[in-house]
């Protein structure tokens, strides 16, 4: 049971946050990971996320917002169920990342920071994801896919499409 009686998070995440703040010598240290975990569950850093995290850490919502806006992985509006991040930095660029990005824009019918009409995919050009030696690489949510070609990336998208369909059917 979480210490927050009116948590917007799932009981599991609320319990995780309760434990997280106790780990550190100063509880504010939990702020950055908390924002990321909250985003994973809610989909983005909403006003409600900011309010509850501020409350949990005994700091102001402005304090939370001030930190949240600094980190590029945190976002303030929803993205697709599968957020496709294409690294175009130097190592990936040299091995065809821009062709891959163009291909993905064409396949998904959206541009940088766009979301498909069905909400399944969003697309983003991002800075180095630390997969330089296995370039070109993309990250879909937290999954890495490397040494890609246009054909390979089509197969990758198909697996996520199937997953999204499966999830809809099960629901």
């Amino acid at each position, binding site marked *: 049971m979480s210490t927050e009686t009116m948590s917007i998070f799932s009981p599991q995440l609320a319990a995780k946050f309760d434990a997280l703040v106790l780990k550190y*010598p100063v509880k504010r240290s939990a702020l950055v990971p908390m924002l990321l975990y909250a985003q994973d569950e809610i989909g983005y850093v909403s006003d409600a996320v900011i309010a509850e995290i501020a409350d949990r850490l005994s700091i102001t919502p402005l304090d939370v917002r001030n930190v949240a806006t600094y980190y590029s992985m945190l976002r303030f509006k929803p993205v697709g169920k599968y957020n496709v991040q294409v690294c175009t930095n130097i190592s990936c660029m040299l091995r065809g990342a821009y062709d891959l990005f163009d291909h993905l824009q064409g396949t998904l019918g959206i541009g940088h920071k766009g979301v498909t009409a069905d909400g399944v995919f969003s697309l983003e*050009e991002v800075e180095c994801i*630390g997969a330089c030696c296995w370039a070109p690489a993309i990250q879909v949510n937290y999954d890495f896919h490397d040494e890609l070609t246009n054909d390979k990336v089509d197969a990758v998208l198909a697996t996520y499409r199937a997953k999204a369909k499966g999830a809809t059917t099960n629901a």
Partner: protein
Amino acid sequence: MPRLVSHPDEVKIISRRFGMGATDIDRFIELGGYESVKKALAQGPEWIINEMKASGLRGRGGAGFPTGLKWSFVPKQSAKPKYVLVNGDESEPGTCKDHLIFLHDPHAIIEGTIIAGLAIGAKTGFIYLRGEYRYLIQIVEKAVADAYARGFLGTNIFGSETEFQVIVQSGAGAYEVGEESALMESLEGKRGVPRIKPPFPAVVGLYGGPTVINNAETIAAVPHILAMGGAAYAAVGSERNGGTRLFGISGHVERPGIYELPMGYNLKKMIYEVAGGIRGGRKLKAVVPGGSSTPVLLPEEIENLGMDFDQVGKAGSMLGSGGVVVIDDQTCIVEFALRTISFYAHESCGWCIPCREGTDWLKKSLTRFHAGFGTIQDIDNIQYLAENMMGRTFCPLGDAAAMPTIGFVKKFRKEFEDHINGKSCPYAKHVEVALV
């Protein structure tokens, strides 16, 4: 899943457990793991630091500062708790070596962290990984939990009177946080901007306590150094550059990947023999030797170049993170420079004006240039602007943006001029960086 590569010239010290299932604690122990920390507990801090000094290990994050010396700067007595901080934020383009350590050998990081803690008298260690590496964070968290379950971490580690706790921390996407004082700010739950130095972290660091901060590769080397002895480790490398290095070779080579080679290994051999040469039989145009911030080298400059901090420094560049980016003769250097500087413009934390404004101006100038609207005056302006960013910021990000830019303009001036004369890129490709 990142592919593992190998080459007969490799000397596998840090990477010797890669691909051997060492994420499992029993397997790690079977492969000799956690023996060095027991030795360290028995021998004490002075012995550890002496072995580290003897090893000649220099920080693998990029600056190359001697690790043993760094540890010896931490005051023995302190009113505030001391901390060990492992920097796994790894965000420099061209660099992905720590990725493999966390993936294949997380316990080596934990063991190294405990030893660093014993050396300086810290009771807590933090392992900070970039947020994008979520799947690696989970591997490291599992390894930490297993180590606690065995009594290797906690109040009485390995049955001794010593306490040591490890906390795994996730970042959320910011290159700047790789800078040591910015990392501490981030860990304290703030925007990851650098602190003014001095005081240095060894005296006033995390939560105001004395802190040792080391790159993940540096920490991973520590147990191996104690196992083989500092002098034996030093003997592997070149003069004043002990041991091996995880070199990441990416770009236009046949076999990109992470290779563990002795410090001082010839760069030309690394490209043509270890990594299989230039892709598609093309010619080498340039090499970025140590991550995107290090100045570019020409083919004639790498003929007899040994890859260690001193030799690469003498050649006018830096060994940096050991991320070698190989560029073939079909690549537009202006485009490459634009993509490099776009990164720094995106990642500048904005605190220091020369960096915030300078990176943005450089990006704008290079964008215009690459589109064919540059002038001769622009070439000089780009160089002048970059030179005036150097040394004028609190952290090295400003330098990291300026140094490669100066290199590109100086060494490839003709290619810049071609963009003016042809009113466009001679290679016909066009990058428009969408990132905002």
